[in-house]
């Protein structure tokens, strides 16, 4: 693309943005940069060079020029041997450091201070609301938008990791036609010409393959495209789409509806293979609502989970039934049968149960009784993997249990296409096979990788004369397309989308596209000859007309669109856009029973013998789209603690039966297809079943994600996208080495009897003040005898402390990524993780309790607990880790010489060491996303959690200038802010009314390793299991 063109374009965009104060875009001269270089924030090549570590050139760090206000970004990696010399003999070289100010500084910007912008991120079509922190135009940290209905201020791990994805140097950077780089304008003119060709036949050969979306703008564009080309078609596809939900609603209600769950009123929850706390668009909100009912009172909720492989929701369950995924329909039918006598609403549905139960009937009856007792206060949830019939029966159950309108409501689907699964794709596949399709525009995420293997999409797409594909990476799908358009990252894009309840969020970019990526709207707009307008213009035009519509309806507030627009952007949500429940949706139980009967029978037939293969979206890379995100790759999987891999998960009993050990390389064959992968034995997995996490084994993506793990899609067909039976598993004989961050499952791996690090107890014991539990907890808090005079903190304004409620923690690990992002924590790669050198300051320990076959789980986030009598401190020979006046266990990186003695003497082992130069190969782009308030640590330096001291100091200075004290809740640590369940509380223990002080006074409070008299400032609140008395003995 010609430079002039792009420059002019950029200039035009800039002009346009000038008036918009809330836009953080600082485009500029950087547009002159070479095309493939990151741009938008740097003003010259010299500056860019300045951010690079200069030690490579053997210069002193003083040789680096820097952007004002972000001086620390590249800090420690440039300190090497040279600095030693520099410090010893001061500098032997004259200062030659540049300061580069702005030519025109945007009004709202104060160099050195961060700004926050509301935006959103769409996954599976639904948009979550985010607040993104930005330092002089570089987004550095993602937080949840508190006013967004789905995020409520928290985030998922995926959202936290967006920052790394944004700056990923492996992203696609060049628009191309076949192998030839072309300019965007070239693409537009060629598309225009192509569209003229379609004019004659109404776009008969034009097909769009998109991902599911709720974007009003995209829907409008689609409408306009279809207006122009009536014979064109849109198909929506996502590899992990759960069409069962909407099909089930169709079955139950007669029309496609989606369930929206509300857990605030739910006292009893039954999850049928639904990982609702860590999967799906509602997960952050549901986690919050769920944890809101986890206070250990009589009113505490109770969670039953039925699932084949342990998930985050399963780890959180009070009672968990491991059941093969294919047995869930029968289980649901049996539940109906169990409840039918008491719930007349179920009618004939009570007669559907068939076959011998593959589960403990006592468990089922206990659950049924519990649900029945809690009519109108309970909820049954089915997961995305379950077929329509399960969802239909669940709808009937919820209806009969009087839950609809209380704990769940059914509303019209918000996505433009109701279905996005393999059946939706089948039509397109047949058309391509028939040679009907002439131009195929793919904006769906990597269908060649994630599509059903029997569709053979890679070969099929080759039959289409003209394939246009837009994606973040040159991936598997990009290989076979004629036009490839690098997609703009969400944080670079304008856009809009709805939350699960329909509330619209305007997605605004935090930065100009670093590598000239285009949005989906840009690509679609090309087909209505508006590809040159830019998404921002499209969006304003669309919403401008929408707003007028609203005005016409009488909304006086929408008088001046610009002001309204400003407010939408600032708030992150568009008011009054929520979608209500579908009125008059009722279930005809009789008709449903008739329809469900054959379906259940079919499921029953499919439920033949043999080992069940289950596919699962991965909590780390999802369907593979995050495969090149190193934070997520290195994030320990919440259950298995596996990093940098997926594994064939199976239960201990199955493993024993098949003579499989963890690490054995297996071949899984089913229906003439086979895939190879390493085995991993996981407690709590259903027997006679294996689970294959999706999203790995990527062949084409960046250097992080390629060739990591195995591709389970290789045996995943359109007929059985989630569960299949009759697999044979054979051991190949070779061994595989996993990088697992926690090898040990239990709290006492060698039979030691130690006070459990993570305490979990039944509710009855918690509520009884004289129970052994409470006695034990009493002994695990409070000061221990200590010969030295405890330091006097009473005169300090603040006394920082933290409390982590294990009862709220689900183990989802969003906090780990939040911490990683906030504190510039490097990734170390698989080999180093295997060696035990992962750098996460915060880890989530996961302990299985009970039998390995069917354990209960407790998760325990653990960062530095800031011991008042810290064992790490007195062994440091150079005063590099000492105590602050407010009781923080400080870590002074620039003083550290790296003896690692502190880590050896840390009983919690929460210190992390830069064994190698992990920040060495950080790309210049990535450096822009570093938090400038936190030192980037060099090789040989110890690091650890300091309660986000940079946030404390920022807030302290801010409030000190204002002449006030930091209010409770005003200062959040990164983990706390990211936590969807608010399990982490931080604040000053000096303030007795602070949440953290109250948590420290909680009867469930205990100190980890209290017997060592370390006086930790982080307290834990014991986990509570709300056991069903009828089942308590079973567990």
């Amino acid at each position, binding site marked *: 693309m010609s430079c002039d063109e792009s420059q002019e374009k950029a200039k035009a965009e800039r002009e346009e943005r000038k008036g918009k104060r809330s836009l953080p875009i600082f485009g500029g001269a950087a547009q002159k940069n070479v095309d493939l270089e990151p741009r938008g924030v740097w003003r010259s090549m010299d500056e860019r060079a300045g951010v690079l570590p200069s030690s490579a050139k053997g210069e002193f760090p003083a040789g680096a020029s820097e952007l004002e206000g972000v001086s620390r970004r590249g800090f420690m990696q440039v300190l090497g041997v040279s600095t030693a010399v520099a410090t010893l003999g001061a500098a032997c070289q004259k200062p030659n450091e540049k300061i580069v100010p702005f030519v025109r500084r945007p009004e709202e910007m104060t160099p050195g201070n961060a700004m926050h912008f509301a935006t959103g991120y769409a996954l599976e079509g639904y948009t979550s609301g985010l607040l993104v922190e930005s330092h002089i135009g570089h987004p550095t940290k993602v937080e949840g938008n508190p006013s967004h209905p789905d995020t409520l201020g928290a985030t998922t791990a995926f959202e936290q990791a967006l920052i790394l994805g944004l700056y990923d140097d492996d992203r696609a950077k060049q628009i191309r036609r076949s192998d030839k780089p072309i300019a965007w304008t070239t693409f537009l003119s060629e598309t225009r010409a192509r569209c003229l060709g379609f004019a004659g036949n109404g776009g008969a050969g034009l097909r769009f393959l998109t991902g599911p979306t709720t974007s009003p703008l995209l829907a409008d564009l689609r409408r306009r495209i279809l207006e122009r080309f009536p014979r064109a078609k849109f198909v929506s596809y996502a590899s992990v789409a759960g069409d069962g939900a909407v099909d089930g609603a169709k079955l139950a209600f007669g029309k496609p509806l989606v369930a929206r769950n509300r857990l605030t009123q739910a006292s009893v929850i039954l999850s049928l293979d639904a990982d609702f706390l860590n999967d799906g668009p509602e997960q952050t909100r549901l986690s919050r609502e769920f944890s809101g009912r986890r206070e250990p009172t009589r009113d505490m909720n109770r969670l039953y989970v039925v699932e084949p492989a342990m998930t985050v929701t399963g780890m959180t369950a009070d009672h968990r039934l491991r059941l093969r995924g294919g047995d869930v329909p029968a289980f649901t039918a049996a539940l109906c049968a169990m409840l039918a006598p008491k719930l007349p609403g179920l009618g004939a549905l009570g007669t559907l149960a068939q076959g011998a139960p593959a589960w403990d009937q006592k468990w089922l009856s206990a659950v049924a009784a519990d649900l029945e007792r809690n009519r109108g206060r309970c909820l049954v949830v089915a997961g995305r993997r379950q077929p329509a019939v399960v969802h239909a029966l669940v709808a009937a159950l919820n209806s009969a249990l009087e839950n609809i309108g209380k704990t769940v409501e059914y509303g019209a689907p918000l996505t433009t296409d109701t279905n996005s699964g393999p059946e939706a794709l089948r039509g397109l596949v047949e058309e391509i096979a028939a040679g009907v399709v002439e131009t195929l525009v793919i904006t769906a995420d990597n269908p060649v990788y994630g599509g059903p293997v029997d569709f053979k999409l890679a070969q099929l797409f080759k039959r289409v004369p003209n394939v246009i594909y837009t994606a973040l990476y040159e991936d598997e799908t990009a290989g076979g397309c004629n036009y490839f358009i690098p997609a703009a990252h969400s944080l670079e894009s304008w856009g809009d989308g709805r939350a699960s309840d329909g509330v619209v969020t305007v997605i605004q970019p935090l930065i100009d596209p670093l590598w000239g990526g285009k949005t989906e709207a840009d690509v679609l707009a090309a087909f209505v000859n508006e590809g040159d307008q830019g998404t921002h213009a499209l969006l304003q035009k669309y919403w401008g007309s929408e707003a007028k519509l609203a005005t016409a309806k009488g909304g006086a507030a929408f008088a001046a669109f610009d002001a309204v627009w400003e407010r939408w952007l600032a708030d992150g949500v568009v008011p009054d856009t929520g979608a209500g429940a579908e009125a008059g949706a009722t279930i005809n139980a009789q008709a449903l029973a008739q329809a469900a009967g054959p379906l259940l029978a079919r499921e029953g037939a499919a439920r033949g013998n043999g080992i069940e293969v289950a596919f699962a979206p991965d909590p780390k890379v999802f369907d593979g789209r995050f495969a090149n995100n190193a934070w997520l790759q290195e994030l320990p999987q919440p259950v298995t603690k596996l990093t940098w891999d997926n594994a064939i998960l199976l239960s201990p009993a199955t493993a024993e039966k098949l003579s499989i050990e963890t690490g054995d390389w297996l071949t899984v064959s089913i229906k003439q297809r086979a895939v190879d992968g390493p085995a991993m034995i996981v407690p709590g997995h259903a027997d006679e079943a294996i689970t294959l996490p999706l999203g790995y084994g990527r062949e084409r993506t960046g250097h992080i994600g390629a060739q990591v793990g195995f591709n389970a899609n290789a045996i995943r067909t359109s007929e059985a996208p989630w569960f299949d039976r009759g697999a044979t598993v054979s051991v190949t004989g070779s061994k595989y080495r996993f990088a697992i961050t926690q090898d040990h499952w239990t709290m006492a791996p060698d039979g030691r009897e130690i006070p459990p690090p993570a305490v979990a107890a039944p509710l009855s014991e918690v509520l009884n003040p004289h129970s052994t539990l409470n006695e034990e907890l009493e002994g695990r808090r409070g000061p221990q005898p200590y010969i030295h005079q405890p330091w006097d903190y009473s005169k300090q304004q603040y006394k920082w402390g933290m409390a982590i409620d294990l009862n709220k923690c689900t183990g989802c690990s969003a906090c780990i990524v939040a911490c990683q992002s906030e504190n510039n924590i490097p990734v170390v790669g698989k080999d180093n993780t295997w060696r035990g050198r992962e750098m996460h300051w915060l880890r989530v320990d996961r302990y299985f309790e009970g039998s390995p076959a069917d354990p209960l789980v407790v998760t325990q986030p653990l960062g530095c607990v800031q011991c008042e009598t810290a064992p790490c401190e007195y062994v440091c*020979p150079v005063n590099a880790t000492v105590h602050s006046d407010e009781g923080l266990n400080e870590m002074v990186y620039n003083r550290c010489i790296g003896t690692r003695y502190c*880590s050896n003497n840390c009983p919690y082992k929460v210190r992390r060491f830069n064994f190698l130069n992990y920040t060495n190969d950080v790309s210049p782009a990535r450096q822009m996303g570093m938090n400038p308030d936190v030192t980037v640590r060099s090789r*040989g330096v110890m690091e650890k959690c300091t309660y986000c001291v940079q946030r404390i100091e920022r807030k302290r200075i801010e409030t000190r200038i204002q002449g006030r004290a930091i209010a409770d809740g005003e200062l959040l640590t990164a983990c706390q802010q990211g936590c969807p369940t608010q399990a982490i509380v931080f604040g000053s223990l000096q303030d007795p009314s602070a949440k953290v002080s109250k948590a420290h006074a909680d009867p469930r409070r205990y100190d980890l390793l209290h017997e060592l008299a370390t006086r930790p400032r982080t307290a834990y609140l014991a986990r509570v299991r709300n056991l069903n008395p009828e089942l308590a003995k079973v567990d």
Partner: protein
Amino acid sequence: MAAPEPAILPNDPLEPIPLIEGKHTDRTINDSLFDHVWRGPGKGWWMLFGCALSALGLLVIAITYTLYKGIGSWGNNIPVGWAFGIINFVWWIGIGHAGTLISAILLLFQQKWRTSINRFAEAMTLFAVICALLFPLLHTGRPWFAAYWLMPYPSVHRIWPQFKSPLTWDVFAVSTYFTISLLFWFLGLVPDLAALRDSSKSPTKRLIYGIFAMGWRGSGRHWAEYKWAYLLLAGLSTPLVLSVHTIVSFDFAVSVLPGWHTTIFPPYFVAGAVFSGFAMVLTWMLPAREFLGLKHVVTPKHLENMAKVMLVTGMMVTYGYVMEHFIAWYSGSEYEYSQFFRVRQHGPLAPIYWLMVTCNCVVPQLFWSKRCRTNLWVLWVASILINVGMWCERFTIVVISLHRDFLPSSWKNYSPTWVDITLFIGTIGLFSTLFLLFLKFVPAVAVTEVKELRHELAHDPTAEPAGETH
């Protein structure tokens, strides 16, 4: 001279094995003991030296690579923050201690059999300490800062070292130890250097030895002060040795880690040091006396005495192990108990533990038998095994304790890398190189002291006849 019999050094005067064999004059002693210095290096020496130099080359490579890549080139991790580096450090320091003990404590107790081996042992001390000294600096993440931030100098940062850290104590202890050992060794060497100067035939050698002899002229006035200076250095070295290994043991003992937090460490580290040090002396002494013609001054009596010391210190070390385990059981602390009875004995690194027990507790039991004490091959193999055992002891303490501590969630396994192994081999190369150079250029036996001993034996009616043959 009424020598008080030291409790730890059983020297049975009822066994009249001679300390010097054959009839000698000052001149013949002089000539025989200088012989290996004047003789050109033999083929064997060159071969050994070649091996040692190659190993030294490996050391240079390993150090360079470590400095270039960082500690990540080693096998260390979290929780095993210390591994080969500290193991080697403690091992070498321990070996060094025997040298000082032999020459200083035996001098204080006026043990006559000391003279034949003290120079040898002191040199070993010096070289072992040099090997040990590599590690405190090299094992840090940023040695270029560690090199001077550990020193209390008035910096522009206004910050000081943290004097409550055992590592700071280590800095003072080890640097003092090295300095004092060097001075002690050199002071003892001065009269011999003068003798070398005066008996050398080539002017170059005379010049070099002359420079180092510092103009020593055997003046009676000098001897008067010299004897005190030497005796006091010896006197100072004795508590120094005890304090150095006590402080080294504090690196572990002051921590909270099960397996480290052990109050018995100071004495048992010292005993272990003597144990391994004597083993190392024997490992080198046996071939040296064979090839350097020192049989007449390093007699079976010396070897036997050393074997007895090893037996005693080996028993003390064993006692230490037993006590550790006993206290771990008796304390009732689950962490301690698990460390000693589950992790060490049955954990993934248990073979190292059992090797330690075999080498350090079982092997020295051989020395109850006089036949074993006097059989050179048995002695040599046993001493090598004891060195291996003592290395395993440090591995057990450092790595096995670290890799299984309080919270099972943070447990990790440990495996060394090629750099770790190369570094270890490399230090042996460094030690051997220095030792071979020492054997080449300086008499391996304190000639002056042997002469003094000969006169003493000749004139002391209570001493065994000097001329008696075995």
